[in-house]
């Protein structure tokens, strides 16, 4: 883990460190060599850690006032909003915090896609990241059920019913998940338990994610390996700490805007109606961050295949390091990939938009085309592109494009100024 020996200065520190090398770990984290060309897209790891801690702390506080019972959950949430001191603030931070968490994680994921951060030797970091993303979706979905409003109830019904698509055992699994014959009190109490558990699982995986990151070190916008020891890196503290801190402040301004000015804009008005098992809201939609996958689910006219397509759309990401056959990491040096990258971004945004619209007519047609393209991108375009594409020459070091002498100086420089 450490590339150099470290000895604490004080005697007590040395005594402690010999028994539990926490100070060695702290030293590794502060001195950790970081590519000096990292741009602001690299600050989202820190922002995501902040989001996770925020959700855990506010969630803990909410759990002190919330009652996980079908008859009382809805009222206890209103009690938090009206009676509990600063309850409104804490709940709005938690509810909008989920959206902010996903906003940050999507930027983080698309950063990896652009700069090829998932490629060798960082496949394990990437796969752990995908598992974290899946757990985030599970936590967000179950958290949304807890207020026991109409969207909570019907969202829970629709999502748990996805499992009924499994041949033979599907119905049994759904009954087992519900603890009854419909979404009801047993479902609510177990969702509360799991919603409480998952953030701590994520925390554990984040430790593994960072550990795996610290083995090869960060990727960087140029996407070439840094040469150690060299002038290509800066120590994590204070350089990256300050940069991350500044980005976090900017992020918190956006966060605070939602919490204080439009705390309900990302939610659904229907969720302020208590759950009613006899009436389905006219238009059920998940939260915005799940919409692209929801669009994929609805674009397939067969139940089982729709569920398979939706799950594949997420799981296909785990195979990405092997589907992308190009050895070049950064899209800066892949002129064709760069265009397909932006088409994919547009494709996912379109899927998100049609996911929020009724599944009929033109919307359905667009959703089908966009779904087909999504899979085409990963299963056909990426493998073929890596073999056919003529990439631009790579600089010899990450310092070279800045100091000059690189054959593709202008490309690298222009791209960098754009990115920054």
């Amino acid at each position, binding site marked *: 883990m450490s590339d150099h020996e470290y000895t604490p200065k004080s005697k007590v520190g040395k005594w402690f460190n010999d028994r539990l090398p926490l100070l060695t770990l702290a030293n590794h984290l502060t001195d950790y060599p970081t590519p000096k060309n990292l741009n602001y897209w690299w600050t989202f790891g820190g922002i995501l850690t902040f989001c996770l801690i925020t959700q855990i702390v506010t969630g803990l506080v909410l759990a002190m006032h919330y009652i996980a019972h079908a008859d009382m959950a809805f009222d206890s949430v209103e009690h938090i909003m009206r009676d509990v001191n600063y309850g409104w603030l804490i709940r709005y931070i938690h509810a909008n915090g989920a959206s902010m968490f996903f906003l940050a994680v999507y930027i983080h994921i698309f950063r990896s896609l652009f700069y090829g951060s998932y490629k060798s030797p960082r496949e394990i970091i990437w796969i752990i990241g995908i598992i974290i993303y899946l757990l985030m979706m599970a936590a967000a979905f179950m958290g949304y059920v807890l207020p026991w409003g109409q969207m909570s109830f019907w969202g829970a019904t*629709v999502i*748990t019913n996805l499992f009924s698509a499994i041949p033979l055992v599907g119905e049994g699994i759904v009954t087992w998940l519900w603890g009854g014959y419909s979404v009801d009190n047993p479902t609510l109490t177990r969702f509360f338990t799991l919603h409480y558990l998952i953030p701590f699982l994520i925390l554990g995986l984040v430790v593994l994610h960072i550990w795996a990151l610290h083995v090869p070190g960060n990727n960087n916008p140029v996407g070439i390996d840094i040469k150690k020891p060299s002038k290509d890196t800066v120590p994590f503290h204070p350089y990256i700490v300050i940069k991350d801190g500044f980005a976090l402040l900017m992020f918190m301004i956006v966060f605070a805007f939602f919490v204080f000015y439009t705390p309900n804009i990302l939610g659904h008005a229907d969720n302020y109606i208590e759950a009613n098992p006899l009436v389905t809201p006219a238009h059920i939609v998940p939260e915005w961050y799940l919409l692209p996958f929801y669009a994929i689910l609805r674009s397939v006219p067969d139940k089982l295949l729709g569920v398979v397509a939706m799950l594949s759309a997420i799981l296909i990401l785990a195979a990405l390091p092997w589907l992308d056959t190009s050895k070049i990491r950064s899209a800066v040096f892949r002129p064709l990939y760069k265009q397909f990258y932006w088409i994919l971004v547009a494709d996912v945004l379109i899927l998100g938009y049609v996911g929020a619209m009724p599944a009929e007519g033109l919307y359905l047609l667009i959703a089908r085309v966009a779904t087909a393209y999504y899979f085409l991108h990963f299963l056909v375009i990426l493998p073929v592109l890596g073999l056919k594409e003529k990439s631009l020459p790579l600089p010899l070091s990450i310092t070279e494009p800045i100091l000059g002498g690189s054959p593709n100086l202008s490309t690298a420089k222009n791209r960098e100024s754009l990115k920054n």
Partner: protein
Amino acid sequence: MSEKKTNRRDFLFTATYAVGAVGAGAVIWPMIDQMNPDASVKALASTEVDVSSVNPGKTITVLWRGKPVFIRRRTEDEIAEARSVKLEELKHPETDEDRAKNPEWLVMLGVCTHLGCVPLDQKGDYNGWFCPCHGSHYDISGRIRKGPAPTNMEIPEYEFVDANTIKIG
């Protein structure tokens, strides 16, 4: 395998793994099964409904095992329409005679077989029900005609206790 003789130690290992696996299973199963419907949930197995106030062409919705059940008193036209459909036109072929023993009364789970939403009454392209969640159209017999739902809406076990009372479950 043949040249290597099974000795006493191999036997002990295999026996230990086997007992260990049985023990682990015996501990894990209660942890899994506790999530299945409990005795109090199972106890709510049947519901009796008085249908004397339902006029022809009207549907009432009652709750049975936490799920809505549609009870529709169908008009003569609706029965004729439901019974005239050819089986070849259906995604999930079932005759209306099988679904509604007493043609005047259609009793079925008001749960879309796609993902469990409650379909809306007298909507959709087939004059029956329409599920707003993902656009499944059902006919006046509750059979799936268009959309992602794989099967017809389910018919629960029910019986007429007397002329005006239906017992579901």
